[in-house]
Each structure stands twice: as structure tokens, then as C-alpha cells.
């Protein structure tokens, strides 16, 4: 595990207050409605591509990724709560990633983040079968896929909750870029209720930019787009 400076207790406490104030003051929308919109957009693009859901998802990811990058970066780097910028609560130490992800998820979903997500876990590179630091985010329910009627097989190598993964992937990428860790973050939903798993699980692999060739040996990346 990295020996870089860890977040102090005081900063963690500030983050704890900041996430609550930010979520409280921000305009919010119904999560169900977002999930209906997501499902409807998938139907629309599947229609455009003559029922090819995998191609529809390829296109949607390319369309949604830039905005997700922009919004999550803005959220982390520009938002200030009571004069304290979120970015001042970021740390280059990988052991702080679970705290940063949890704080970000709370800022986005409020108290529901605690009902849905288990505490993220960081697996150091030496213990990871992909040989790079790995973050595991598990969730016990999923507001994205709970409403869909599209069979999982239709998505080919995609998983239904790609939008969900993109948000967490981009939050982590923005953090790593800001703190100066030269990682390329790649996320996949390796377990999904939609595919019959009894828990949801997102894995984020932090590839050092000078070792991107390690991605070729990642079995998950071969199976899941």
C-alpha cells in the first residue's frame, strides 16, 4: 500500500459534514424517474439499431461518458461547502479511496448510499489477481436494473448498470488525476442482479499509465465491456 500522506481525522470529519450539507442543499430528483429515463433511452437506441442492444449500449456509453467526466470532475474539484472545497479532502493515499468513494456516493444519493452500498475495499496490487490496485464496491440493491424487463442476454458483453459504473469510475479517475497519481481507472460491474447474482459488485482497477498492457491479461475485461 502506498506510503503517501493519509487524510487526517479532521479532514474526514469535515468531509462528513460537507457531504451532508451538499446533498441537503442540492436540487434532487426521484431516483426511480432516472431509472425509467435510462431504460427508455436504452429502448430508443435499441430501436435505432434494429434491436441490437449491445450496439445500443456501445453508443450510449460513448454519448454519456463525456458528460459524466465533466459533471463528476466539477463536483469534486469546483464544489465548495461552507467555504471548504471538496478537493481539499482528497488524498493520494490509496487507502483513503474507500472513504472518498463513500463520501462522494453520500453527496450524490444522500442517506440511501448507506442502505445500498457496503464499505468499498481496496485490494493492493500484490494481492490482486490483476496485479494492480483494485477497488471493490458492493451493493445490496440496485435502483437501475430493478425496473427493467430486458433480458440480460440481450446486452451481450455489457451489463445493465454501465451508467452507474461510469459515475463511480469517473469519480475515482478525477480524484487520481487531481492528486497526481498516474493511474488509468477502469471499472466493470462484475456481479449484477440483472444477471442473476445475489449481490451487485463493481470493480475498479487502477492501471499505472506506464503498465496499460496489464489490461490485456484482465479476464473480466475480456468478458465484460
Amino acid at each position, binding site marked *: 500500500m502506498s506510503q503517501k500522506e493519509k487524510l487526517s481525522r479532521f479532514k474526514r470529519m469535515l468531509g462528513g459534514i460537507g457531504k451532508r450539507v451538499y*446533498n441537503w442543499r442540492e*436540487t434532487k*430528483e426521484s431516483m426511480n424517474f432516472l431509472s425509467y429515463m435510462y431504460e427508455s433511452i436504452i429502448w*430508443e437506441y435499441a430501436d435505432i439499431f434494429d434491436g441490437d442492444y449491445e450496439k445500443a449500449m456501445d453508443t450510449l456509453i460513448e454519448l454519456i461518458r463525456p458528460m459524466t467526466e465533466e459533471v463528476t470532475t466539477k*463536483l469534486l474539484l469546483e464544489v465548495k461547502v461552507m467555504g471548504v472545497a471538496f478537493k481539499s479532502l482528497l488524498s493520494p493515499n490509496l487507502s483513503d479511496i474507500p472513504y472518498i468513494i463513500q463520501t462522494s456516493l453520500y453527496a450524490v444519493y444522500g442517506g440511501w448510499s448507506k442502505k445500498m452500498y457496503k464499505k468499498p475495499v481496496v485490494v493492493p496490487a500484490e494481492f490482486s489477481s490483476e496485479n494492480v490496485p483494485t477497488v471493490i464496491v458492493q451493493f445490496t440493491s440496485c*435502483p437501475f436494473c*430493478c425496473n427493467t424487463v430486458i433480458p440480460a442476454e440481450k446486452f451481450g458483453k455489457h451489463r445493465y448498470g454501465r451508467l452507474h459504473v461510469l459515475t463511480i469510475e469517473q469519480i475515482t479517475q478525477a480524484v487520481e488525476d487531481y492528486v497526481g497519481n498516474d493511474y488509468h481507472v477502469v471499472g466493470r460491474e462484475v456481479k449484477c442482479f440483472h444477471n442473476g447474482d445475489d449481490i451487485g459488485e463493481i470493480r475498479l482497477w487502477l492501471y499505472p499509465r506506464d503498465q496499460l498492457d496489464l489490461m490485456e491479461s484482465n479476464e473480466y475485461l475480456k468478458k465484460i465491456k
Partner: protein
Amino acid sequence: MTEETKEEIEMRVLEDIQYILNYKPVAVGAKSAEFFSKMKIIKPIAVNSYPNIYSDLVQRFERNEASRRLKRLGLREAKFLYATNPNLFKKPQKFIEIFQEVAESHLSSKLVFKDRVKEDESKKLKSFTIEVHNCFFCSEVAVFEGIDIPYCIPNCGVYENMYNIKSLYSEGLEPRLIRIDAVRSAEYDGDTCEYHVVVLE
């Protein structure tokens, strides 16, 4: 936009009712929409996927077809909402309540109903205007310049189908069917969107 005929709307709504009655989610372990009914997400994240979808559909299709597809996004959302909330689907509601319920509970918007036009003799409602405050899609988004398709067309679809599905299912509501078209979308902070509602008789 090429207008759907009354018969086409009726056929589509009846198909939607069939979808709702036969609805079976496939990701059973993920819990249900009822479980997440009180869950909220901050708006910047909720709407971040839409601007590029809007601009892609507008570039991919000619104006009428793009408008039709954008509105269809909302028509489906209403169908999904009823399918996953059977209590709301069966709940008896009056004309205006149907719009207000979806606006307040799901879209965090406020609606003002105005410019009601009635038939001279029978005094039956012919049309009216909905003014939308704090539109789900528009209130935090930079305006797309040079595109004359209202940005929040999907919302029209939501309101139209929320009403029409309930009307045809409960068979007691007056008017029986409506069509909603977006007249304009909000262009700056504090601005409002405007939809025109036509009664189809």
C-alpha cells in the same frame, strides 16, 4: 411535428396498458421501484446523460422524427412508472391531480394551468396551457442554440401518457384522450417551460 391521430394514440395507449398489466421485472434480487420510491439523486448527476442524447437524436434524424423520438422517451417513462407502481396506476385521481402528482413526486416541478379554452355551447374543455416551473430537464442546462426543438419534449410525453393511460384504464375520466406538445423550453434561470394540451374528441 407530425401529429399522431386520435386512433394512433389510442392504440399506443392500449398497448401500454397491456405492458403494465403483464409487467414482470427480470432483476428480482435488485429490490423494486416501491423500495426506492423515496430515494433521490442530485440533479447534476440525474440529468447528465440527457444533453448528449438530445443532441445525438437531433443530429441523427430530421426535425419531425427527432421530436417524435424525444417525446417517445417520456411516453415510455410514464408507462414504466405505472408498471412499477401498481398502487399509483389503480389510484383514483382527478384530471389535474394526475399531472400534479407526477410533477411534484417525481420531477420536482411545479405546474400552473392557464388559458383554458372551452367549447361555446357544451362548455367542454378544448385546450389549455401548462406552465412548468423548475423543469426536470431544463433548469440547470445550457441551452442548445440553433435547434428549434424544445429541449424538454420528453416531459410532454410523460404528462400525456400519465393521463391517457389512466383515462383509458379507468374509463370514467373526462376528457378521454389528450395530446401534449411542447411550445417552449426554459432558456435561463427562473424561466418556465410551456406545453399546449389539446383534448382529442
